């Protein structure tokens, strides 16, 4: 070591990132540059990661302020399919609102909404095919709610009631449905991100044509399994779409705590040679186009893609959280990317394919649909009032066959 003594250096300081606005501040995002809709290229699906480096730092957008779809990522979906998409998002919103309420009414212990983020899962799901598999987090209810998964079963699960498809074993909203391409949600963050890569590797090993999609939140990209997933996806060129939902917040911590105010989450993929695209997550059309591109790429054997969906968590983290303690109430409205439902509605209206009246009608219809499903589900019970599945279920399915020690415990429990 050099003998020089450091005593004339100035003292070091710990840098701790802070969000721009805290409760009491007036949020102002006018300094945030949002690229114009339609800007930027649409590369071929076999492009090397390095050639589209820029797409990891911009935001791909399709719908402009006038409700027009513009640029190379536009024109993917017929009006009919867009209307379906709008209804999907509205169904999610209606479902979330009612389940939030149900939790407050004591019908279950816990709920998590995805307010403001509906476009992402709803549009993504349309880029997949039957047999493909999502490895979701707790905020992708849109994947199920935009498919034909029964609402009643979702609510049965949320209520942990006697008809709960998971037999009362899981926390509310931790759905599972292999048939609907929805891997069982874990309460432990990020673990599913690498599992999705493994599933995709399996598909490749078997010479299958199915692909996987992994999901993760901005805050959870800090977890180590995010890295595992990138390493494995890169090494084996796994047919997987790696989705980061950057909704700016991770409970009370803003995205700077996961990335140190530097680079973008998308750009993390570049160090692994994985193409990365950043997309306006509140723009249904953009999310669909980018997701389709990534899914096509995976299916064609070109390997993984990372998508960062830029959005904003408009609601609380969960029913256990109150965001007014750590961010200004107005931040959600000030957030520059707008509301995904409003934006898609405006697009359809601008095209003459939708009207305010139709919109109101659709909302009412969807609310009724959800209310009806809730009514059905409540016939099977709610968490606190029961009925639940038999306590015997507690001892089943720990293993394929229940071993002796567990059978003895069940006997002891008298069930």
């Amino acid at each position, binding site marked *: 070591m050099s003998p020089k003594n450091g005593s004339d250096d100035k003292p070091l300081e710990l840098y*701790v990132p802070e969000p721009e606005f805290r409760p009491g501040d007036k949020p102002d995002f006018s300094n945030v540059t949002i690229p114009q809709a339609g800007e930027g290229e649409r590369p071929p699906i076999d492009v090397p990661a390095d050639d589209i480096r820029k797409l990891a730092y911009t935001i791909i957008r399709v719908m402009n302020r006038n409700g027009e779809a513009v640029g190379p990522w536009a024109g993917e979906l017929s009006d009919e399919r867009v209307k379906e998409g709008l209804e999907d998002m509205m169904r999610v919103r209606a479902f979330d609102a009612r389940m939030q309420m149900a939790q407050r009414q004591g019908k279950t212990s816990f709920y998590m909404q995805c307010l403001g983020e509906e476009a992402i899962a709803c549009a993504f799901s349309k880029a997949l095919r039957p047999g493909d598999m999502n490895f979701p987090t707790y905020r992708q209810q849109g994947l199920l709610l935009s498919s034909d998964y029964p609402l009643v079963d979702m609510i049965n699960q949320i209520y942990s009631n006697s008809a709960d498809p998971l037999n009362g074993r*899981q*926390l509310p909203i931790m759905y599972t449905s292999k048939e609907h391409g929805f891997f069982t949600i874990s309460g432990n963050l990020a673990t599913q991100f690498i599992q999705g890569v493994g599933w995709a590797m399996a598909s490749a090993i078997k010479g299958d044509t199915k692909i996987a999609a992994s999901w993760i939140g901005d805050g959870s990209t800090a977890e180590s399994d995010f890295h595992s997933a990138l390493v494995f996806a890169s090494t084996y060129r796994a047919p997987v779409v790696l989705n980061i939902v950057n909704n700016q917040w991770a*409970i009370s911590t803003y995205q700077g705590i996961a990335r140190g105010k530097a680079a973008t989450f998308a750009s993390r993929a570049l160090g692994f040679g994985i193409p990365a695209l950043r997309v306006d997550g509140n723009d249904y059309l953009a999310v669909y186009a980018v997701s389709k591109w990534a899914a096509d790429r995976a299916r064609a054997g070109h390997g993984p893609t990372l998508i960062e969906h830029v959005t904003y968590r408009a609601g609380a983290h969960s029913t256990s959280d109150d965001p007014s303690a750590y961010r200004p109430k107005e931040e959600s409205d000030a957030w520059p990317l707008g509301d995904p439902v409003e934006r898609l509605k405006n697009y359809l209206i601008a095209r003459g394919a939708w009207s305010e009246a139709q919109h109101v009608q659709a909302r009412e219809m969807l609310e009724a649909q959800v209310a009806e499903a809730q009514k059905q589900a409540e016939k099977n019970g709610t968490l606190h009032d029961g009925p639940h599945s038999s306590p015997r*279920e507690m001892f089943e399915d*720990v293993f394929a066959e229940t071993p002796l*020690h*567990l059978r003895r415990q069940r006997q002891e429990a008298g069930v």
Partner: protein
Amino acid sequence: MARMTMIQAVRSAMDVSMGRDDNVVVYGEDVGFFGGVFRCTEGLQKKYGANRCFDSPINESGIIGSAIGMAAYGLRPCVEIQFADYMYPGYDQITQEAARIRYRSNNDFTVPMVVRMPTGGGIFGGQTHSQSPEALFAHVAGIKTVIPSNPYDAKGLLIASIEDDDPVMFLEPKRLYNGPFDGHHDRPIMPWSKHDAGEVPEDYYTVPIGKAAVRREGEEVTVLAYGTMVYVAETAAKETGVDAEIIDLRTILPLDLETIEASVRKTGRCVIVHEATKTCGFGAELMAVVMEGCFDHLEAEVIRVTGYDTPYPHAHEWDYFPGPARVGAALKKVMENA
């Protein structure tokens, strides 16, 4: 003296420790500005600055790994893992690193670090917000594990843990945060303000690591418990009328062997209670300790009352939880041939 909840007591312990020693730093997920999802660190960032109390990225291995580095530097980090269920990504750093650095470096480097984590069930947290992983720490040489059961102990033990020169896993039974829970979930909640152990000095004091407390003296049977189960055991004793000596272990490792052995030798009977899964739980070790230290005094089979060997189920939380009925049945069974 003040009346404190366990949350306030834990916070006060960190406050006092940070005030006395500026090597004490506190961080973890949501721990800084917000003050933690259970609010245990509320106000500390404001009082001590963002470089002494701050939010961390969501990476438990990173939290613990960085704390090891800080401790090796000379700080006394006291980090929070949001739920004990989320310590697993950091388990490598805890068991392979923190636990062995003093030993492998022959005292050249040490790890005076505390890892706080809410533990146990009873809040409808399902399988990922209810776990009790203490046995996984106890099996690994080089880590201390502390589990307080009331505000007074929580504060005194946490200060002692922060001052300890070795890594301490500090498990806070989350069901006790707001009151002593007797296991009857269908009855009104008793707050700490109505319980003696809610009396907590505002200043510095310590409760020694490695010393159990006898919560109830008794002659007929020794009950070994810790955390939430202490109150469940008290309730069961009351309800069954069995004259149980209830020992609150407080520290899992190092274990207060002397107190345990003296009690079981006196009573000749023993019931062991914990919430964690049964197989290879800490109850198994207690069983072994009783066997090794008191075999000739045993008048009946020692019984374990524990969580079942299944994940913690959401809907069946109260079937899973070893409540007063199950503990009471064990007390009666162990007294059968008396």
